[in-house]
């Protein structure tokens, strides 16, 4: 008899070990303080200002707590979020980039909140349109941003080099790089090899637009890029590399260029790099040198630049606090005080009420000045290639193969073309 009791006892204990975990959660769901989980990526400055905005919101809304879940880069962010979503434990707010269509099935449609909890009337229609996927409003734009070349103004002044014009043709640009090469000390190169970046196909995307052959058209599920086009791009940079206008491949590969902390420009190894305008304040905060913006070459004649929604705030469809979460997002994008705290870190605000708050920051002023010149040199954004992450990662590998001389630009062009076809068919 004793034995039976013991058996039952142990069975009960082991069962409680297994099932015990579930009971705690149920207790917390009823009433009490609300906790909003906000997953985003970014470094340094973005973390600081996001925290300030959270503190302001929490002081105005007692009983609401916002927990940020921060990753250093977009790559890590999506790995973490994917895993959490697969485990049924996704955050409430998920910061999203151009890959928002890939996530459409796990996001909460916001249409029924627009006009009440979420004031969309002050947000630019183009920004609302960019967050609308398949007829449903899935993301609230954090602001708009533009690709740009960024140069180290202080460095150029120190070595007595002329400052670049904001708009140049490719020929003028190459001549300018040659001038820089003559002025810069050895070990410092005129421009970063902007193809050798593990996480971004934007410079290639820009060039294909300049070339009149956009990467992808979602409506026809096709690419306008041919093997010959891709080869031309690889040859352009092969020429820069041969002439010492960009660093040798092993030097370039030493900088991941995923944010300011791993940038060759910030490390002082190159005079010109590339970024999205919303990254400027983060880059500027990482160096005492003064940075400034110019256009990618050839944009004036071709309107190849574009304005992109920087990022989106999206909501996990399984969020338990959807209403409170939307109120918080409304605060982030529309509240004037929040706008002054957040500045242009996630893009120049797309909300009129946020913009009306104004900016005293010199960096934001530079972005506004740049947009003033570059704004007319834009056309609507090209659709994103399906399987964006794989495209970036493989393009990076192919580009490096050419840079290190493992394959010729012609072979590289062919492989990029095949990659595009494969990803579109996948």
């Amino acid at each position: 008899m004793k034995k039976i009791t013991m058996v039952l006892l142990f069975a009960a204990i082991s069962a409680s070990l297994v099932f015990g975990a579930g009971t705690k959660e149920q207790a917390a769901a009823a009433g009490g303080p609300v906790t909003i989980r906000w997953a985003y990526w970014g470094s340094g400055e973005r973390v600081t200002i996001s925290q300030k905005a959270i503190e302001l919101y929490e002081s105005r809304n007692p009983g609401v707590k916002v927990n940020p879940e921060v990753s250093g880069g977009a790559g890590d962010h999506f790995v973490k979020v994917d895993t959490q979503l697969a485990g049924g434990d996704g955050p409430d707010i998920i910061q999203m980039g151009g890959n928002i269509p890939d996530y459409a099935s796990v996001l909460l449609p916001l249409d029924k909140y627009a006009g009440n909890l979420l004031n969309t009337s002050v947000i630019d229609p183009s920004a609302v349109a960019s967050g609308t996927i398949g007829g449903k409003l899935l993301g609230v734009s954090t602001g708009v941003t533009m690709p740009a070349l960024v140069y180290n103004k202080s460095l150029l002044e120190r070595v007595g080099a002329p400052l670049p014009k904001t708009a140049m043709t490719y020929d003028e640009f190459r001549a300018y790089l040659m001038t820089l090469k003559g002025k810069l000390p050895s070990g410092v190169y005129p421009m970063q090899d902007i193809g050798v970046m593990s996480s971004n196909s934007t410079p290639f995307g820009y060039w294909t637009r300049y070339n009149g052959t956009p990467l992808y058209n979602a409506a026809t599920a096709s690419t306008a890029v041919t093997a010959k086009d891709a080869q031309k791009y690889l040859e352009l940079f092969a020429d820069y590399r041969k002439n010492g206008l960009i660093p040798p491949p092993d030097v370039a590969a030493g900088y991941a260029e995923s944010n300011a902390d791993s940038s060759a420009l910030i490390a002082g190894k190159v005079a010109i790099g590339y970024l999205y305008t919303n990254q400027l304040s983060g880059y500027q905060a990482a160096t005492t040198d003064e940075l400034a913006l110019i256009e990618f070459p050839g944009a004036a004649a071709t309107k190849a630049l574009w304005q992109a929604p920087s990022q989106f705030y999206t909501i996990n469809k399984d969020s338990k606090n959807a209403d409170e979460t939307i109120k918080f997002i409304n605060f982030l994008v529309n509240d004037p005080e929040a706008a002054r705290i957040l500045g242009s870190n996630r893009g120049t605000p797309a909300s009129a009420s946020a913009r009306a708050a104004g900016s005293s920051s010199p960096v934001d002023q530079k972005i506004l000045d740049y947009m003033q010149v570059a704004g007319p040199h834009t056309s609507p954004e090209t659709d994103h290639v399906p399987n964006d992450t794989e495209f970036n990662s493989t393009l990076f590998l192919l580009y490096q193969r050419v840079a290190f001389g493992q394959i010729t630009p012609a072979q590289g062009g062919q492989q990029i073309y095949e990659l595009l076809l494969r990803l579109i068919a996948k």
Partner: protein
Amino acid sequence: MLDLHRKKIWKENLGSYAFLIPWLVGFLGLTLYPMLYSLYLSFTKFNIRTPPEWIGLRNYLVMFVGTDSLPKDERFLNSVMVTVKFVFISVPLKLVFALAVAMLMNKKLKLIGLYRALYYIPTLLGGSVAIAVLWRRLFAGDGLLNMILGSVFGMQNLPAWISNPKYSLYTLILLAVWQFGSPMIIFLAGLQQIPREYYEASSVDGAGRVRQFFAITLPSLSPIIFFNFVMQMISAFQSFTQAFIVSGGSGGPLDSTMFYSLYLYIKGFGFSEMGYAAAMAWVLLIIIAGLTALSFKVSGNLVSYGSGE
């Protein structure tokens, strides 16, 4: 009669089974079920966000031969080559190094306890993110190593070791060899098991240090060398952190540090091909199991367990 006996044994063992339950529940729920599920996933196309879709052997075919519509995965084969190279260079080097240090640590010196602890430290630190970042700085183009080579030895035009595909894997091998602590401790325990009399008797017979090493130390240690080899080989096959941090998560430059487990991770979480990643995990299991079995077979003649005299 027999039946009664059985019943009695069952009754006697009941308590033991009861004690096993907590472990058993954990094993079934947290180990066996996920393993079987990953086996199932390996035959599917699964992007995490939508339910898995059964595709039979396609994942495995793409790895090794390709299918009609999909080419063979060259990056997979490259990752196998990189990993095999890493394992078969780093493990023997590490064992030689660990044995050499263990023999030094086996001497009767003052503060020997302190030395043993000090030499173990790299093993505690080596797998950490901080050390991988440090490694990146040491072997960068403008890193400490090149500064020393340049200013002390006046060498010019040095490569950026860590971002040059010719050398990057070797910097990771060096990092692995540096973590020689655990095999060192095991070697040390083994060395202390060898009876002193063997050495005394052999030196009476006129054997020198070298002869003693090859005739006594190595044969007596052979089971331990074998154990260390197998354990280190298995963990080397699973290396991930070093390559992930040092290459910024890309396995670059040029996939030269694309370890098997790193590629698995990129495929699963980066490219959202969980089914393929699951299939890769099973292939890795088979590779490791096969190589371990092979090691046991080959070791038959080389390892002496000393009891058969």
